[in-house]
Every structure is written in C-alpha cells, then in structure tokens.
C-alpha cells in the first residue's frame, strides 16, 4: 500500500516547503533586523536545496555501479564517456548553487554590516522603532 521511499521523499520536499514558509514569515513579520537576516539565510539555503533536488538522479541499483561516476584517465574511450554521462547527476544546478552560496555569503555580510551601522546610529535594530525616527 504505502511505498516507504515515496513517503520519505514526500517528507523531504514538504518539510522544505514548510521551511520556506517559516523563512518568509521571519523575513516579513519579525521586527528585528537580525532575525530578518537569519530568516533570509534560511530562505536562500532552502532555495539552494530545491535547486539541488532538481538535479538529483536516482542511483541505478544498490550494488551497481561499484565505483562513482568519475573520469579518471587522460585518454578516455567513447564508452567511458558514455557511461560517465549516464551515471553522473545533473551538474547545472550544482554550478548555480555553488556561486549562489558565495554571493549569498557576501550579501549576508553586507546586510550584517548595514544592521550593525544602523544599531550604532539609532541604538536599535527594531524596524518599528527605526521607522518612527525623524531625520
């Protein structure tokens, strides 16, 4: 009746949607800028995980292939390349996520810097209080 693999995979995807909702709640509803930044990092990590799942390919069988799909010699044959391209996972989402992580780190550091400066100037990171400041 219930397939265990499908159940686990559904838990995985669904929990990521819940994570997305929680992160959006944190970004939109929490008043503190620090909490907003934390929620934003959770949001970007969830988005990255979604991208990785898009590139996921199932391992063909529990016992085969024995060795991971890697090209190891300098002069591969046509068969080597064909086997490699049939067994490896999609590299495109990984390439996008890898740059997204570093850019996300730089942007997060910039936001932390802005928040720190706002705290130095106004003495608070609460957006409700900052918006009421004049000047």
């Amino acid at each position, binding site marked *: *009746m*219930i*397939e265990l*693999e*499908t*159940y686990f*995979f*559904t*838990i995985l*995807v*669904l*929990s990521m949607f*819940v994570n997305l909702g*929680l992160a959006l709640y944190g970004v939109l509803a929490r008043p503190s800028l620090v909490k907003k930044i934390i929620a934003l990092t959770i949001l970007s990590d969830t988005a990255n995980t979604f991208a990785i799942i898009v*590139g*996921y*390919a*199932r*391992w*063909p069988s529990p016992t085969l292939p024995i060795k991971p799909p*890697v*090209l190891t010699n*300098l*002069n*591969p044959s*046509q068969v080597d*390349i*064909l086997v*490699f*391209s*049939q067994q*490896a*996972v*999609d*590299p*495109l989402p*990984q*390439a*996008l996520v*890898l*740059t*997204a*992580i*570093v*850019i996300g*780190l*730089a*942007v997060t*550091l*910039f936001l*932390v*810097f*802005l928040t*720190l*400066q706002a705290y*130095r*100037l106004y003495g608070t990171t609460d957006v409700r209080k900052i918006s009421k400041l004049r*000047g």
Partner: protein
Amino acid sequence: MRTTKENLVIAISMALFVLLLSLVLAVGGLGYILPPPQVRLIASWYLRVTFNPFERLFSAMAPEGVTSIVWDFRGLDTLFETTVFYLAIIGSIAIARGVIGGHKEVDEKKLGLSLIVKSVTRISLGMILAVAASIALHGHLTPGGGFQGGASAAVAPLILLVVFSRYFIEKHGITKNTMLILRSIGLFGIGMTAFIVVIIALASGAPAFVFQNQPKTIAPTGMPFEIGGALTGGTLWFFNVFEMVAVAAGFTIIFLLLAIPEEEYKKILRLGGGEHE
C-alpha cells in the same frame, strides 16, 4: 515573549503537520515520486562534452562538470555573479569609509586568547591554507574551485583575527589596503583571462570570442588543455586561481572592517554624523 513550553508545542505541531500530511499524500498517491535514474537531456549533453577528446569543438576539456559549466559553458553568468560579490564588498567598504582604525599603540601580546589556542592556531594555519589551495588548484579535476577555495582560505585570517587580534594581523601586513590590492589583482586576472584567447588570436589575425576556452568552429584559437600531461582545462585553472585570490581577499576585508572597535566608529559618527540628529 513566548514561553519554552509554547515554543515546544509549535515545533512539535510543525513536525506532526509535515509527517501526517506526507503520510496522507503518500497513501493517496499524490506523493512526490522519486526522480528517474536518467538526468535531463541538457545535463546529459553537458556531462558528455565536459571532457571529450572526440568532440573537441564542444568540449571544455576538464573532467569536472561543475567547473566546466561555471567558467566555460556559462562563463558570463559567473562573471556577473563575481560583479555582485564585488559590489557587496564595495558597499561594505563605503559604509566604513573614514574609519581607519588600528593605529593605536597597543601591546598585542596581551590581547587575544590563551597561549594554547595561539600555538594550535599557528600549527593549523598552514593546513587551512594548504586545503584551500588544494581545493582551488584542483578545481578543474575534483569537486571544488575558486569560490570554495577562496571561502576556505578566508577562514585563516578570520581565525587569526579572533585568536590574536586586529592589531596583530595588521602589523603582519594583512591590512585593508593590502587586501584591496590583492583583490584588485584577482579581479584584473579574471578580466585578463577572459580576454587572453582574443589577444592570442589577434596576433595571428584569427577570429575569437570573449570568454573562449577551447577552439570552436569559426574561432580556431584556443588554450592548451594540458601542459606536459597535467590537465589545466585551458582557462579554467587561471580563473580558479584568480577567483580564489579575489574571494579570499574580499572576505578578509569585510572581516577586518567588522573587527574595528566600537569606540572608533562612535568617534567618527560623533564627528561627522550631524545629519542624524
């Protein structure tokens, strides 16, 4: 403020929501089916041409598919992502303008953590840098590359900053300005590597593309993909090295700026911050 008990109830109800809804979906046949063992057609194409001596005109000639995509097939994407990175760091430097810091005469031997931590840091520092260099320099062969290597290398100055002090590392040459120069060298290197095939082709009068790596149909000039039996992946190796320098120096700048003591900021803000009153 919520109490701990209320937080616990919220967390458990979230977990139960996910588990039960998944159960309902899976039993009802609406669950997410597992992805097939085959990848999509475009991914299969990328994997087939990433290192393929039989299709030199399409191949990036590097066995690591992710690096081939990052710096060859979708190289312009990565160039503009590097621009975003550049702007984020320039923004941080602009916020901290006027704050120089680090000129105070202090006895840096008294600052920082204990002698044990300092000794362990001295030992492990070389290892951190070696791992970072290995990640970046082998980026075209094994998982890794310039971004990851640079982010790992930036851990070393961060640890120094925490374990010793800001004054210690500024005395040993890791200042904002030297890092800015290092970062500019890295970015300049990325720019030059993007144009190197064009420059080589111009000398012989052949057509070439910007961001070209291997020879293409109408642009026969290309970088050698191996030197003495060692794979370099053409321009990929140079991109990785320069990106590592740029990323590591960029992160070090932000860490240094974040470590400026609060009093110095307060001083600057009090002197020039008239518009905030």
